[in-house]
């Protein structure tokens, strides 16, 4: 019996870090690009750092006859001691002021109050019995909790889907297929099935199959094969509107199917805009060149608004599939990145598009709400940092923005280089006004953020989840999470190593 240790893999460490000369053409292109970037970016700190001549080797003060070395050394030491201690105290005060406004590294600050932090209330989680503890929590639809589990040691890809009663934890059904992507409405779960080759690897295919399952029984209702380009490399936007399932492919192809029969009602397409070419392995060591686009679709007022990577908005009649209009919203004109990851969400009076925006002072999260019919901007926000976003049915928006906050140089001397920080924004989607904002605090783990309109929940510490209400009261749960929780009505479902735990919010 061979014991599985990783000693043989330790030999790789540090062995694949050596420099390699890329193509001369690439190097020349990069130099040109970097020069061009300096024209656009006020990267003064980078420039000054890099352009500052090194003082190493030239900082030695040569003693002269008038300056005895011991006198010079004593004077230098004295000056250094005075300066360092002064800055030490000042920097300590500065950092304390920035991060000491706990509880828990974060302070609630209702936007309409005078800075009075809300209270902190601890809630306890209870384990939902009977649910596969290795299951990844997909979501809760019509009181059915959907998990996805690995087939076991032999397969790292999770392919067993189970439906549980969300209240009792009773197993309702399970199915085992290569499937992904979910949306649910009216008791029907829509999933997508891929084509997988005989040896179990990914098979390049221009078709995909949508499958409808009965949420309570798991019974297959229908399946329909779609002729989409490159769908296998990227998830489609899939939504259920009234009695139709609308799927928008990554390449701008659109199809509407009957929710009850799966029959195709209409098909259409739009220009997907800017794309990015990638080589994807497609099984049997084949490489296939594909173009990936960034495209968002959202249903609003009986229309489908599709926003492509150029910022062009297409309006499509959901009933007929006819394109009723298009215009250039110019969402990304100042965006320096050639490929914007965009998201679109319906609000009660318009739609919201979010995307990252690169500028000379770092990444910003741009939120633009506009009337899709006229293109008129209703409100827009520019939040510092790259953010994760969630929107509730009532249109309130939770955004958690992250930026690196660098320590001052003195703190860096003792190895403290800075912190990853977060700031939680809870925004009223109707007005763009902030409902609640936290102070920027230290981020100690990979965060998630979600809202159901009554609460915004986020994780910023490894063992703690915080949920805020609209008054700034912070409810916190001490638990580790093995996946992303789901906030459904007044209940938070938290995947943990021991299974799925539930927390009743007040």
């Amino acid at each position, binding site marked *: 019996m*061979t014991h599985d240790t*990783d000693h*043989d*893999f*330790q030999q*790789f460490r540090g*062995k*694949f870090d050596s*420099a390699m*000369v*890329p193509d001369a053409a*690439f*190097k020349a292109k*990069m*130099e040109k*690009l*970097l*020069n061009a*970037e*300096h024209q656009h970016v006020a*990267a003064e*700190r*980078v*420039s000054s*750092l*890099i*352009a500052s*001549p090194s*003082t190493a080797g*030239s900082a030695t003060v040569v003693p002269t006859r008038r300056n005895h070395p011991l006198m010079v050394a004593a004077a230098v030491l004295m000056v250094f001691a005075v300066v360092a201690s*002064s800055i030490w105290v000042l920097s300590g005060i500065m950092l304390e002021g920035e991060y000491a406004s706990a509880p828990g590294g974060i302070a609630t600050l209702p936007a309409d109050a005078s800075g009075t932090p809300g209270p902190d209330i601890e809630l306890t989680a209870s384990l939902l019995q009977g649910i596969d503890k290795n299951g990844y929590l997909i979501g809760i639809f019509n009181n059915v909790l959907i998990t996805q589990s690995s087939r076991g040691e*032999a*397969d*790292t*890809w*999770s*392919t067993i889907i189970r439906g549980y009663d969300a209240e009792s934890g009773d197993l309702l059904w399970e199915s085992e297929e*290569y499937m*992904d992507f979910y949306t649910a409405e009216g008791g029907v779960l829509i999933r997508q099935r891929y084509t*997988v080759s005989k*040896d*179990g*690897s*990914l*098979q390049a295919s221009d078709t995909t199959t949508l499958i409808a399952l009965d949420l309570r029984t798991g019974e297959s209702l229908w399946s329909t094969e779609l002729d989409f380009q490159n769908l296998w490399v990227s998830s489609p936007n899939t939504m259920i509107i009234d009695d139709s399932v609308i799927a928008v492919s990554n390449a701008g192809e659109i199809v509407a199917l009957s929710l009850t029969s799966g029959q195709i009602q209409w098909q259409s397409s739009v220009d997907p805009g800017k794309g990015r070419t990638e*080589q994807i*392995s497609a099984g049997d*060591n084949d490489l296939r060149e594909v173009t*990936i686009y960034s495209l968002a679709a959202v249903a609003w007022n009986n229309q489908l608004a599709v926003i492509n990577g150029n910022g062009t908005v297409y309006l499509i009649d959901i009933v007929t599939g006819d394109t009723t209009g298009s215009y250039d919203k110019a969402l990304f004109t100042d965006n*320096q990145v050639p490929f914007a990851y965009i998201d679109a969400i319906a609000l009660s009076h318009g739609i919201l598009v979010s995307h990252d925006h*690169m500028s000379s*002072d*770092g990444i910003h999260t741009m939120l633009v709400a506009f009337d899709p019919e006229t293109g008129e901007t209703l409100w827009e926000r520019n939040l510092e940092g790259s953010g994760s976003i969630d929107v509730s049915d009532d249109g309130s928006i939770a955004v958690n923005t992250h930026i*690196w906050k*660098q320590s001052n*140089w003195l703190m*860096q001397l003792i190895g403290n280089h800075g912190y990853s920080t977060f700031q939680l924004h809870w925004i009223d989607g109707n007005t763009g006004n902030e409902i609640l904002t936290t102070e920027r605090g230290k981020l100690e783990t*990979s965060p998630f953020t979600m809202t159901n309109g009554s609460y915004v929940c986020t994780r910023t510490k490894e063992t703690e989840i915080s949920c805020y209400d609209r008054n700034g009261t912070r409810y916190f749960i001490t638990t580790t999470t*093995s*996946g992303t929780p789901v906030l459904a009505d007044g209940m938070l479902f938290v995947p943990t190593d021991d299974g799925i735990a539930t927390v009743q919010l007040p």
Partner: protein
Amino acid sequence: MDIALSRDVDVRPVSQRKRAPAESSAVTTLAHVIPRLYGYFYPRIGGNRSLAEDLTQDTLLSAVRSANTPSAEAELMPWLFSIARNKLIDHYRKQDRERRHLGQRVDDDEFELHAGLPDLDLESVPVRDEVITVLNELNPRFHAAIVLRYFDGCDVATVAQAMFLSETATQSLLARARNSFRAIWIARNGDSR
């Protein structure tokens, strides 16, 4: 009181000081690190040259555009490599997201525990290329786990965070990844232990 930071103080004689053209010097310095970054990405993404170039470009442009830059010269490379690793993790996550649930199924009977790797001469280019080739034959999650854990020396918690897994699941993933790597290595090169 204004306090001059050490990097602002030029102690050379005035006659030796030159007013460096900041932009060209910055670009020159960044241009010098292109091979380091390219050499970091190349083996970690299966030897895909164009992808290594894209990630190198992304890293350098992010560095130029960043508002928070290191304030000491010695921190420049660690800082650039931290950006590079984030780009690499983003790439793995994107790859994972796009292929979630898509195969790489391995038959149960292939899951015998394989013998460990021999001591490899990793200074030899053919051996290094073979390691990269074997990595490339792994499924993307195995590939990412091996690179982060053993090429970059990340601890399990960091790998878990990068791959959105619990630490227990990550340990399991790493065990399967190692086994799969060994199986492919032995199939291609024989068991030379």
